[in-house]
């Protein structure tokens, strides 16, 4: 009898312990300009997860240049999920550290890019240097702000957008290379990430034009005033597709695989897409995109696959050690 009572108590205690809400902590390692997006999104997801499971989830954020952030994860930063600026940086987690499988991009819709953006120009109010298109960035006396493509995902999008524009206009890769060399001669400061470049241009007052993520440009105007800056949309730009992935090796170790997957899945829900749109990212969901269509300029966009044969090739040609950027910048 005594044994049965003890057993009953033990089982009851075990059940009570099991019924107790768990506290889960995730780390989202992301690129520079997504701070505000994920502050909003994390709140929404925590509420969603609490309602669904009763568990409390706290998502910690880490931001920096996308390449630098990928290096951090490879070196041991325990990210449950990465939400980086481009697929090449997520690829590195598979290729260098085998933290994720090589086919990671197939695990989520739209090649694991739940939202997109593009590259535009942010200029000072009144556009004193008359910046209209990519050509204007290589003119003598125009100071251009863009981050370092070696560490920043945004900078790589900037670089490739300019390259493709020049190639189409001037007709060859050689001419495009010369164009990019001229452009970088006009860059007085190379920040390590997009947010740093925004600080350089907006807060430190350096430069005539900042090549910027569309969402970052909108945010600068929202925060610092439409009376100080304006956006110039070039004739052509690149469809920037920031990508996301669960970091398999980390979530297995931490036991957070289920919630990490749910976190990324939630980016594709209506709520997730709305939050992305509200933060000036172009949503994949067409209905929500239509709702926010006034926010986004209509321009000709090309993809990385069309212009450069995918990120792997573009990375190797332009940004790997000894690639075109090194050749240009070493001069």
């Amino acid at each position, binding site marked *: 009898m005594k044994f049965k009572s003890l057993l009953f108590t033990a089982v009851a205690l075990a059940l009570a312990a099991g019924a107790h809400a768990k506290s889960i902590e995730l780390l989202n390692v992301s690129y520079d300009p997504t701070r505000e997006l994920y502050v909003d999104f994390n709140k929404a997801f925590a509420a969603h997860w609490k309602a669904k499971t009763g568990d409390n989830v706290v998502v910690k954020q880490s931001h920096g240049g996308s390449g630098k952030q990928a290096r951090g994860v490879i070196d041991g930063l325990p990210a449950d999920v990465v939400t980086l600026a481009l697929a090449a940086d997520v690829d590195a987690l598979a290729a260098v550290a085998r933290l994720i499988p090589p086919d990671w991009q197939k695990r989520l819709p739209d090649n694991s890019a739940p939202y997109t953006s593009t590259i535009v120009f942010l200029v000072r109010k009144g556009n004193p240097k008359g910046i209209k298109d990519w050509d204007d960035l290589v003119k003598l006396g125009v100071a251009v702000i863009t981050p370092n493509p070696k560490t920043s995902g945004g900078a790589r999008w900037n670089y490739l957008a300019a390259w493709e524009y020049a190639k189409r206009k001037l007709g060859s890769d050689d001419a495009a290379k010369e164009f990019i060399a001229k452009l970088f001669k006009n860059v007085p*400061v190379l*920040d390590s990430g997009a947010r*740093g470049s925004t600080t350089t241009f907006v807060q*430190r007052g*350096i430069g005539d034009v900042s090549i910027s993520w569309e969402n970052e440009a909108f945010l600068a105007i929202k925060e610092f005033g439409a009376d100080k800056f304006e956006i110039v949309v070039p004739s052509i730009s690149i469809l920037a597709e920031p990508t996301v992935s669960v970091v398999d090796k980390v979530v297995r170790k931490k036991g957070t695989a289920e919630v990490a997957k749910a976190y990324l899945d939630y980016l594709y829900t209506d709520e997730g897409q709305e939050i992305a749109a509200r933060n000036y990212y172009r949503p994949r969901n067409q209905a929500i995109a239509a709702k926010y269509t006034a926010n986004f300029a209509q321009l000709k966009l090309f993809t990385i696959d069309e212009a450069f044969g995918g990120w792997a090739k573009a990375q190797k040609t332009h940004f790997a050690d000894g690639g075109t950027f090194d050749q240009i910048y070493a001069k």
Partner: protein
Amino acid sequence: MRNKSFRQFAPALTALLALTPVIQADELTQLRDQLHALEQKLLVLERKQEIKDEAAAAAAPATPKVTISDKGYTLASADGANSIKLRGLVQLDSRLFLNDGNVLANNSFILRRARIISEGTFAQNFSFQVVPEFGGGSPAIVDANLNWTVTPALQFKFGRFKSPVGLELLQSDSWTFFDERSIVTNLVPNRDLGVLVSGDVLGGKLNYTAGIVGGGADGAQTTNSDFDNEKDLVGRLWASPFKDDAGSFTQGLSFGVSGTYGREKTAAGRTGGYRTDGQQTFYSYLATTSTDGPNWRVSPQLDYRTGSFGLLSEYVVSAVNVRTSAAGKLTELQNKAWQLAAGYVLTGENSSYAGVVPANNFDLSKGTWGAFELAARYAKLKVDDAAFPLYASPAASAGEATSFGVGLNWYLSKTVRFTFDYYQTKFGAAPGAPAALTNAVIRQDEKSVITRFQISF
């Protein structure tokens, strides 16, 4: 003429005057542009420095830390989870024996210990220690163990380590009151191989240790492989119940008890000899004696520190079953020993189980002399009378040793110590001892002066 001349120049002058504002405006614009360009250059320089500073600040937490101090040389990862530490211990002794009839060639210099100690931590909870010994006789591994800290209350140690029995033996070689441990240490096992579980509980007021080890003879160290199939259980409880009572008289009082229990199986040669403070053998078993059957030890012990005063005391009973042949009679021998040692730091620094830290290092230019400590000790070891004459020779072994010692320790710094000790040991004859003893060591009292120069970090 004058008017004509004016008329000639008037249009040019008018044009010049008309242009003046334009020239001034152009200059102003140029100046503005130059100023803007200069301002931009200045801003760029400032921003570049800012980026550099940010990068340096971001890199700092990832930079490994190198620490060089009187505790050794440490290389640690930025988060402290992984580290490797290099320490060292060198002891040079001089031994002088007085009134020993010049029958012994025992006055000598000796490199008592010369150790390069490697310690490290991995993944925060795993640490290791490897201690090779180059002093004394041939090189040997003293300690080599891995410690796994699950929590402070639950730790595992695997490898070769000090057996957790003798109080003075557990104290670091560098910081005992005297340069040689007392004769009590003869009765406790030294290093052993095995597994220990230990931890601090009750807010650190109680430390427990329990383990299973290969088992060693009195005062002996096992080699790097276990001797036989038999194992010893070892354990120790150590309480510091008043450690949090700041300022109280009892704060520095710690006490406990340790013990071993095991079995030996016809283990010939496993009986260690007993040595004096001067490290001369005054008791040894006959070569025909082997241990067989259970052995056990019990050791109550106490340590007390208050200000400059320190006191250490322990008592040991060591029981061993011996026989002279496989069919010979089995006899349990109980050897006993105890000691009381005390020290007082004359220069006012605190006495400590972990050594004295001088308030000021020795430095003639500053007129500082380091710290000085006086120490005194009384100890006694009694061999079971039943050991004689079957298991030990009364002509070659004493039945009892009583020793006292006085010493002066000079701490030139935390790492450097000079000691000057005088020991005197009186031997009690074994039952049935002949008038003519064969062991020259025990024919008279041992009077020895041992000095040591030591560096330990």
